């Protein structure tokens, strides 16, 4: 046994490059997986704990002015807890940032409220007696430099009141909070949330108008509770939103599954490559040890102990690689990924935690590697000792398939014939080479294509589709004077109403944005073939991605439900628009009114004017550049993860190509030595080696090109956000660059491994046995 251990150690030391390749692949695949899992699993765990500790509601019922009696009636029902509160958007001015306005979502808390509580981070606990006290969003306070006991002045529809900051808090309903349906990335400096007591609200607003009821069922079925509440509220009822549709929950779910998919796809490819490398490495090692195997068998070792011996290589290399990966992932990969997630999500704390799946993955890799070693050993073990102890089986030359077509075959020189035969003899090795090249190309194209697709889609939205300079977000009520002031101060303007809505066709529903557009030419549309189309008063345009998701075709009718209201509309789809964002449907004001809607603009698009910030109806004005910037921030969060994966894959491709170069070199060492003796110059031998590499490269690129384009499409489809369609495409220049990178890598690696020709010692290599 001791002899076996020493032998294993020496064999690994002697073939360290190949074993290193397997080691690295095991390491990388586990590191990527565990690194990502550390984040998503941690995120999943912490967010669930957060939901639990804050006792988040099961669903939210929205109402207009629910009466005190209604609330009492609901409270008297059994099987669930319900708490009513008043929630409004207020604007805030504090001492910081030169008195600029920011926006807070304000919610009242009753005495002893227990649903969707906040977690106090700093300052004093909530108390209803603290008059004029406010508990403020921690991220918002930090972004604006507000501290406990500072003062903020809140205003709501003309009423103003100064509040003292009692505490800084975090609420699980706001894990993902952007402040507006059209924003994608949180802007903590501008949007936050706060809590005040009912008494303070009474003083501030003059009255309490409950418009949100949080419900947590204890025993009854949520749908039944919902129906009961609906019945009590009657006309006051607006809408119900369940927990899984709340951004604080759905965004977390989406990001967790996005990370999961990315990690699984890449790990799968890596593991496959690790297995192939392990198999080729072991096959070669065992081939060179046929004599030893024969000897050991002749000495009386049974097949099982030999099989175990060779399986030990797989065990050692893959287990150390896998465990190292499980260590490196959470230490290196997780922090990088987590940093990105912190840009969109707010949690009281973050935790990196891998699950047993990481270790199961290590187990799978180990088992597969061990098996591939055992299978590789199987061939030699089947031989009787007398045969395998013969010094060396002369490798039989073999016709390549190509040779069956003589008129084609004969135009090639002997050197080319040699290469073709070599390739067809070492099929597995060649196949891995081709997979390495094609796979490398695919992953690099995915990387560059991703950034091309994002920037082309962003270009389309912000430089073609949206032709305005400013988007003015409006307060709820816009006076006619303000409206005409906005029209007059710009060379062109267009009023638009945007509402979150559910789009439904035959029971298949999807959330999106309903945009109702007044006269003006600041939004341009194209159909899916990129022909210009004009929005008419006879129907709606639906964006392509949404249309595909819910299976809508031109001429269909769909149900539109404006979220947070009782408004349902039936709309006819007139065309499918190429628009990547916002995903949803577009209708004209006239059409909207014809299906029963009431147009109340939420934004004004203006061109050739100023930002109109001084007009009181204008809540906020954003430039098209800011919107683009915002989108880019979001895209970058995905890009960073992708880059990480791509870097790892390029590394792997290089390792694979180098490893194959080494394998092929070792196999043909004697042939190269013979050529040296015959008087081939080193460069001629290297050129011959490069030819084989070139052939593999060409085939790999030819196969990789269609695969990479297809992969890009699928991949973008999977990782994209619902609200934005990244249209998969790669610019020709980028594709050339990708192919260039692969070609350069492959050639450089091949040149590097062909340098070994210099080190061939002819006398040693060809030593004859006396």
């Amino acid at each position: 046994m001791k002899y076996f251990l020493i032998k294993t150690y020496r064999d690994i030391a002697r073939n360290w490059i190949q074993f290193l390749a397997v080691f690295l692949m095991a390491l990388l695949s586990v590191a990527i997986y565990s690194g990502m899992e550390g984040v998503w699993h941690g995120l999943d765990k912490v967010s669930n704990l957060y939901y639990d500790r804050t006792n988040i509601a099961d669903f939210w019922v929205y109402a207009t002015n629910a009466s005190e009696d209604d609330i009492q009636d609901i409270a008297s029902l059994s099987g669930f807890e319900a708490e009513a509160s008043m929630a409004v958007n207020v604007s805030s001015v504090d001492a910081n940032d030169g008195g600029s306005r920011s926006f807070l979502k304000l919610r009242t808390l009753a005495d002893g409220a227990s649903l969707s509580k906040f977690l106090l981070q700093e300052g004093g606990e909530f108390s209803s007696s603290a008059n004029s006290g406010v508990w403020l969003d921690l991220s918002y306070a930090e972004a604006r430099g507000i501290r406990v006991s500072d003062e903020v002045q809140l205003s709501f529809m003309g009423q103003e009141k100064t509040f003292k900051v009692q505490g800084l808090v975090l609420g699980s309903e706001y894990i993902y909070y952007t402040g507006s349906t059209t924003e994608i990335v949180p802007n903590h400096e501008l949007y936050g949330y706060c809590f005040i007591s009912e008494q303070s609200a009474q003083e501030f607003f003059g009255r309490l108008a409950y418009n949100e009821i949080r419900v947590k069922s204890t025993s009854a079925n949520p749908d039944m509770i919902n129906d009961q509440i609906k019945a009590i509220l009657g006309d006051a009822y607006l809408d119900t939103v369940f927990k899984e549709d709340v951004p604080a929950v759905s965004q977390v779910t989406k990001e967790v599954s996005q990370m999961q998919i990315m990690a699984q796809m890449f790990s799968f490819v890596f593991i496959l490559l690790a297995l192939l490398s392990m198999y080729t490495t072991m096959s070669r090692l065992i081939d060179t040890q046929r004599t030893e195997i024969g000897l050991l068998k002749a000495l009386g070792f049974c097949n099982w102990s030999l099989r175990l011996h060779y399986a030990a290589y797989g065990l050692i290399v893959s287990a150390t690689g896998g465990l190292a990966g499980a260590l490196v992932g959470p230490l290196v990969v997780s922090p990088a990924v987590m940093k990105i997630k912190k840009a969109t999500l707010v949690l009281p704390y973050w935790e990196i935690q891998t699950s047993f799946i990481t270790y199961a993955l290590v187990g799978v890799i180990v088992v597969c590697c061990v098996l591939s070693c055992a299978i590789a050993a199987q061939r030699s073990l089947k031989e009787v000792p007398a045969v395998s102890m013969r010094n060396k089986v002369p490798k039989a030359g073999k016709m390549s398939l190509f040779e069956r077509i003589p008129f084609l075959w004969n135009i090639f020189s002997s050197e080319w014939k040699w290469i073709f035969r070599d390739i067809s003899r070492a099929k597995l090795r060649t196949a891995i080479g081709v997979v390495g090249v094609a796979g490398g190309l695919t992953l690099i194209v995915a990387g560059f294509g991703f950034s091309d697709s994002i920037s082309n889609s962003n270009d389309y939205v912000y430089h073609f589709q949206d032709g305005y300079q400013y988007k003015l977000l409006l307060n709820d009520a816009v006076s006619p004077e303000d409206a005409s002031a906005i029209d007059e101060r710009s060379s062109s303007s267009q009023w638009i109403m945007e509402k979150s809505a559910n789009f439904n066709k035959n029971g298949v529903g999807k959330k999106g944005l309903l945009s109702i557009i007044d006269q003006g030419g600041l939004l341009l549309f194209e159909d899916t073939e990129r022909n210009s189309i004009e929005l008419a008063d006879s129907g709606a345009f639906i964006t392509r991605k949404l249309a595909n998701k819910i299976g809508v075709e031109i001429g269909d009718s769909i149900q539109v439900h404006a979220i947070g209201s009782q408004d349902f509309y039936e709309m006819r789809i007139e065309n499918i628009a190429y628009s990547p964002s916002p995903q949803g449907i577009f209708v004209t004001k006239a059409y909207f009114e014809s299906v029963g809607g009431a147009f109340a603009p939420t934004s004004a698009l203006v061109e050739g004017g100023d930002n109109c910030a001084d007009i009181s109806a204008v809540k906020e004005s954003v430039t098209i550049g800011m919107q683009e910037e915002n989108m880019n921030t979001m895209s970058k969060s995905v890009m960073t993860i992708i880059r990480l994966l791509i870097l790892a894959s390029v590394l792997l491709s290089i390792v694979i190509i180098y490893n194959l170069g080494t394998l092929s070199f070792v196999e043909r060492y004697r042939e190269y030595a013979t050529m040296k003796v015959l008087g081939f110059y080193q460069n001629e031998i290297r050129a011959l080696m490069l030819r084989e590499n070139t052939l593999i490269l060409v085939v790999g690129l030819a196969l990789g090109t269609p695969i990479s384009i297809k992969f890009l499409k699928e991949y973008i489809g999977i990782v994209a956000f619902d609200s934005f369609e990244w249209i998969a495409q790669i610019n020709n220049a980028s594709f050339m660059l990708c192919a260039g990178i692969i070609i350069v890598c492959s050639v450089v690696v091949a040149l590097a491994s062909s340098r070994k020709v210099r080190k061939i010692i002819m006398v040693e290599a060809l030593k004859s046995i006396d």
Partner: protein
Amino acid sequence: MAFIELSNVTKSYPSSDALINALDGISLEIEKGAFTVILGPSGSGKSTLLNLIGGMDLATSGEIIVGGDHIETLSQYKLTKYRREKIGFVFQFYNLIPNLTCFENVDIASKLSANPIDAKEVLEMMGLQHRLKNFPAQLSGGEQQRASMARALCKNPEIMLCDEPTGALDTQTGNNVLSHLQSMSKKYEKAVIVVTHNASIAPAADRLIELKDGKVEKVKDNELPEGISQIS
């Protein structure tokens, strides 16, 4: 001046305690068109000597002059050029390239030379005209060695170096190979040097060199060498 001249050539290898002299101050002369046989027991330095003449290894000291050129002073590149143009090597274990047919093995070598002998012609001379499309593994040992000789000869080198060419063959086949080598030296005016530890072919050599412990033990010139076929 002889075509090949070695004067005071030493080749030493470092060993655990002292240097081992594989060759110990050897001086020799070999002529063109001569069939030279080097005899000696195992470990006497025969292969080392052949490797030095063939430019596959460098001497520790001494001079090796071939056709007026000092081999020991050549750069790696020049040394390769020297092997390419002047040397044909025949190995004990043939070292044919397994994935090339008999013809192709010879063909790629003939392309190295500025004035090669036609590959088909050489193969025919070696009696391999029916085996052109066979891979080495499909040939017998003797056939493989003849293919290997064809490969060395087709470059039309001035020197043929053969290290135990019959070592892996039975006597009859071995003699057949040797007689081919002997006739080559005459027909093409080559310096053919054959290393063997089979003393029975001594009478066939123009010049017989015996090595022992890295030194020349004996040099003997045969005025009238016998044909190999007569010996067996």
